[in-house]
């Protein structure tokens, strides 16, 4: 070695130590300031084709968090939302979720992803043990399948099987009254489209055994043109058509089917029609399309629901979406659970959440419940009605019966080997 080291401490090292010391002494002050707020991480879709829904999720959360913070926050700690774009990609959703907890120090996750991303975030929650509320994934197995069950994950969204039971029984009643035996289906060709259509047809046939499916079409997701699908359905001459197309795909389909006068030749059941994103965009909305409620401020027909819809519109200059009420519900439940537990600790909130029933503008009877056994939301407003081309768009909604839903859901769980 030609280099020699001076014994003792160099000037540079001294300076470094002084710097480190300064940081160390300053840290407790920073830590104290952080303890006052609680960071809540939220991966959602803010770019790409589904950006509108992700944005409406963020809007609803911000609206509710402002109220909670004005009322004192979670057990005295102000909520600070950290919202990140996952671009709708599952691997990105998982990465963002992990980073929110590990790097940003978020203590709770609001997972506002579509189903594909939700399952990825679910695994992150399983791994990290952080309290996680899924707000948008409606895929039934996320909470119904015991293999997916973890004590720290909850869901505040609708569930596909609930929708199918209510939709199937509503359609069967009309099928019997009007003698609609020949049915066609037209749904997007991916997991959601296939599963939802399959479950819907199962319950339709269960309530109306005469029904026969004579034609199936599976257009691609985001397909620009549906002409060949429209004409194929016209050739099959069904008496009724079911579709779970949604968003821009549904509005394209309606515009293209309209000029073939399809809607005057059959009864159409489109579960995703009664959402403001679709209702306000279609220029020539046909009268009499049957649809499930997504979010509509006139159903439940209560002043609370109308006021919530109007407050959202006043703040963001557009109506809320299905994803909006689901995300708002997550914050409402969090606030109540934290009050009940008198704590902002994830584990204590999770304990309080199980079986928690709260007042809600979106409840079928003015309340919604976080069911303890599978940690998913029940009791929310669910029903079907027919459209008119102007507000209130769906004037009469026929409510689904939660007693029937619970019975058939239990049966469905058994048939799937979930219970």
């Amino acid at each position: 070695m030609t280099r020699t080291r001076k014994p003792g401490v160099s000037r540079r090292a001294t300076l470094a130590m002084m710097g480190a010391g300064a940081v160390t002494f300053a840290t407790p002050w920073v830590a104290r300031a952080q303890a006052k707020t609680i960071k809540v991480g939220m991966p959602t879709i803010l770019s790409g084709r589904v950006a509108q829904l992700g944005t409406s999720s963020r809007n609803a959360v911000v609206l509710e968090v402002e109220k909670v913070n004005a009322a004192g926050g979670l057990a005295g700690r102000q909520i600070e939302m950290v919202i990140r774009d996952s671009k709708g990609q599952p691997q990105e959703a998982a990465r963002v979720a992990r980073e929110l907890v590990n790097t940003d120090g978020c203590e709770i996750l609001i997972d506002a992803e579509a189903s594909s991303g939700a399952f990825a975030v679910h695994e992150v929650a399983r791994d990290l043990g952080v309290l996680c509320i899924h707000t948008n994934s409606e895929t039934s197995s996320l909470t119904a399948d015991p293999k997916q069950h973890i004590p720290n994950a909850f869901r505040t969204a609708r569930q596909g099987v609930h929708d199918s039971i209510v939709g199937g029984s509503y359609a069967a009643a009309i099928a019997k009254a009007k003698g609609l035996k020949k049915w066609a289906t037209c749904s997007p060709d991916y997991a959601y489209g296939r599963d939802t259509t399959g479950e819907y047809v199962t319950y339709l046939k269960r309530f109306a055994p005469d029904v026969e499916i004579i034609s199936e079409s599976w257009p691609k997701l985001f397909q620009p043109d549906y002409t060949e699908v429209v004409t194929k359905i016209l050739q099959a001459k069904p008496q009724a058509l079911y579709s779970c197309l949604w968003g821009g795909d549904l509005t394209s389909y309606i515009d293209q089917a309209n000029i073939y006068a399809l809607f005057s030749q059959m009864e159409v059941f489109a579960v995703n029609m009664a959402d403001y994103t679709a209702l306000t965009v279609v220029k020539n909305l046909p009268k009499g399309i049957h649809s499930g409620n997504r979010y509509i401020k006139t159903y439940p027909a209560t002043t609370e629901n109308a006021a919530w819809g109007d407050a959202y519109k006043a703040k963001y200059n557009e109506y809320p979406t299905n994803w909006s009420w689901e995300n708002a519900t997550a914050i409402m439940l969090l606030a109540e659970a934290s009050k009940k537990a008198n704590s902002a600790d994830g584990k204590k909130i999770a304990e309080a959440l199980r079986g928690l029933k709260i007042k809600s503008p979106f409840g079928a009877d003015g309340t919604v419940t976080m069911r303890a056994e599978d940690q998913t939301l029940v009791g929310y407003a669910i029903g079907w009605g027919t459209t008119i081309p102007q507000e209130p768009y769906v004037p009469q909604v026929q409510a689904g019966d939660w007693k029937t839903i619970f019975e058939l859901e239990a049966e469905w769980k058994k048939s799937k080997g979930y219970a």
Partner: protein
Amino acid sequence: MLPLDIDALTGCLASSACLVTQTTSGFIIGMLLFLVAVGLTLIFGVLKVVNFSHGAFYMFGAYFAMTAYQLTGSFALAMLCGAAGTAILGLVFERGFMSRVYGADVLMQLLVCYAFVLIFDDVVRMIWGPEFKSMGMPAAFQVAPLFIAGGVVPPYYLLLIGVALAAAAILGLGLARTRIGKVIRAAAHNPGMVSALGINTGLIYGGVFALGGMLAGLAGALAAPVRSLTPGMGFSVLIESFIVTVIGGMGSILGALIGALLIGMIRSFGSLGFPLFTEGLMYLFMVIVLVSRPTGLFGKEVA
């Protein structure tokens, strides 16, 4: 459900009603595709660049038409704005950016085009917002469909097919019979010689690019009343246009027409006979053409 439904297909071929409906449906899909693909093939034929951002012109055509329709309420003006707006955009894009990468290698051209795909999508998002939009069918076309030999034909689609066929005829005759057409064909063969004869090749290149953009814009404008408008809507149309040009032959206008109509018919009759394999059928056909005639069906012809 079976992947094959031959009964449905033969049943349809035997009935005039079904035949008329499905054939017009194939024409509608095909003719809109033709308008996009022909611009692509024209630009390649003359400028020797593959315009990967061509889908954006289709998108802008639709948005321009929707805005013009909302402002004026005139359908004709909406179509005009869709076509003229994208022509200007094409000219600016070619003179400002594409003309700088003519000598560069394909990768460079591809990167420039891809960058503009992203930029154009974001521009649309900034101006019109990220949510999907709908232009709505003009009142004049909100009428009951026509019944021809028992088949259903919407009047709007007759207009659409008519406009696209007229565009094809004007383009074909214009290139074959007019002086400008001759100059364009000459520039495609030997731009050096054309420029030595005192003809402004830059102007011709810009003009051809504007024409290609205008045709795609016209397709977007014609599609606007029936398809939803979103940023990124040009992408799937671009993919299908590439299939069309591969089948028809890069650089051939007749090839683009035949290729587009073939794709339209495959979609419309394939959805009856091969409901689970309609997309696959399109690609399968492309592969067969590529293997048996790598230059495409009409690849030897020069635009």
